[in-house]
């Protein structure tokens, strides 16, 4: 799984990154979490507000700092999707 945090280094973006890393650690999944700071790269995801959360190249949240429970839910949903595509 590939997770990206889109943000230009504001406090809210850092908060999202921290939460995401915590969730990944707690779920014990094999995921790569990376920050994307470059404005041009951020804009390729077509978001209007930062911070953005991208899982497997899909924007799942933008413009807010989701709670830990929400991040967990988003990651779990994407895991389920991954499983389904593997099964096919």
């Amino acid at each position, binding site marked *: 799984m590939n997770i990206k945090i889109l*943000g*230009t280094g*504001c406090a*809210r*973006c850092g908060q999202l990154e921290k939460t995401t890393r915590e969730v990944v650690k707690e*779920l*014990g*999944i094999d995921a790569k979490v990376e920050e994307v700071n470059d*404005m*041009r790269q*951020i*804009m*390729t995801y*077509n*978001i*209007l*507000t*930062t911070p953005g959360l991208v899982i497997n190249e899909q924007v799942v949240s933008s*413009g807010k*700092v989701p709670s830990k429970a929400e991040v*967990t*839910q988003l990651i*779990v949903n994407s*895991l*389920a999707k991954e*499983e389904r595509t593997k099964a096919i």
Partner: protein
Amino acid sequence: MVDKNIISEAAAASVAAETRVPKQRRNLYIILGSCLALWGLVYYWLKPAADFLTYDVFNLSASSHLGSSVAFFLYDAPKVILLLVLIIFGVGIVRSFFTPERTRQMLAGKRQFVGNIMAAGLGIVTPFCSCSACPLFIGFVETGVPLGVTFSFLIASPMINEVAVVLLYGMFGWKIALMYIVTGLVIAITAGWVIGKFKLERFIEGWVHDVNLSPSGGENSGMKFEDRVNYGLNAVREIVGKVWPYVLAGIAVGAVIHGYVPDGLLASFMGKDAWWGVPAAVLIGVPIYSNAAGVIPIVQALMEKGAALGTVLAFMMSVVAISLPEMIILRRVLKWQLLGVFIGVVALGIIIVGYLFNALL
């Protein structure tokens, strides 16, 4: 596998949540209603409680410097915090109906002027923080929102924010709060309109046009009432959690000025008759970066001591509307000419408003 378990648990939880909804919603209404009643009660008793603490418990005299400072602080600090909680919650509920994506859809292809008016209005209710100014700007301009209209949005949004309006209402009363909103809107509309007239599109950084965007619409109409309440509560937690130290510090400084600075001291250089007062206030205000929460209580105390309303309002608007960090962020997408025009037009608008208020009141 760890994840399979989590998935089934999450699914079970969401099914259980569906069946609980009607009863939960009734409880939610009851809780919200009682919170509001409690809020009203506390607000009503603030003044007597603050006076009782100051004059009876601490045994301070009402005519002493310390007494008037302490009474001022004990009444104003909790009052402003209470107002902030209520209004930010309410605004949060309203904002849950708006997303930047939807605002963009409404503004795309709008003509000048009508578009400027809409953009300034939407700037008030659309949630976005200043660190998003860049992606927002690109997202708007590259999907057909005219440049001037985009600027109306970017000017109105930070200037007319709920924290500023609450503090103005709490410390100056509703008339001045309303005047601030109306003049703020007028500045945002005309400044955006003027920038649009100048045809400055060539001063947008070149790489912005290489970005390929499709105007996707964010959908959030599916939010339930519970989600909106949650959204409001989150807004309260996030905003009040951030601004309360500024509010307290601002009111503390204001309280000291209130108690110790002699009346009329500031009239000579911040009063109506000093013609250079307004531009000086704007010049000082532009580089200062603070939120409204810290500035307004100080400004209120200054006014009490003889500073003119127009001068004070101009100072406040320039602190809130034009901030150095936001300009640095915007420099990435705007060439300096355009950034200069932006700052110049807004500063000029604020100066005119300042003179206007000094002349009228």
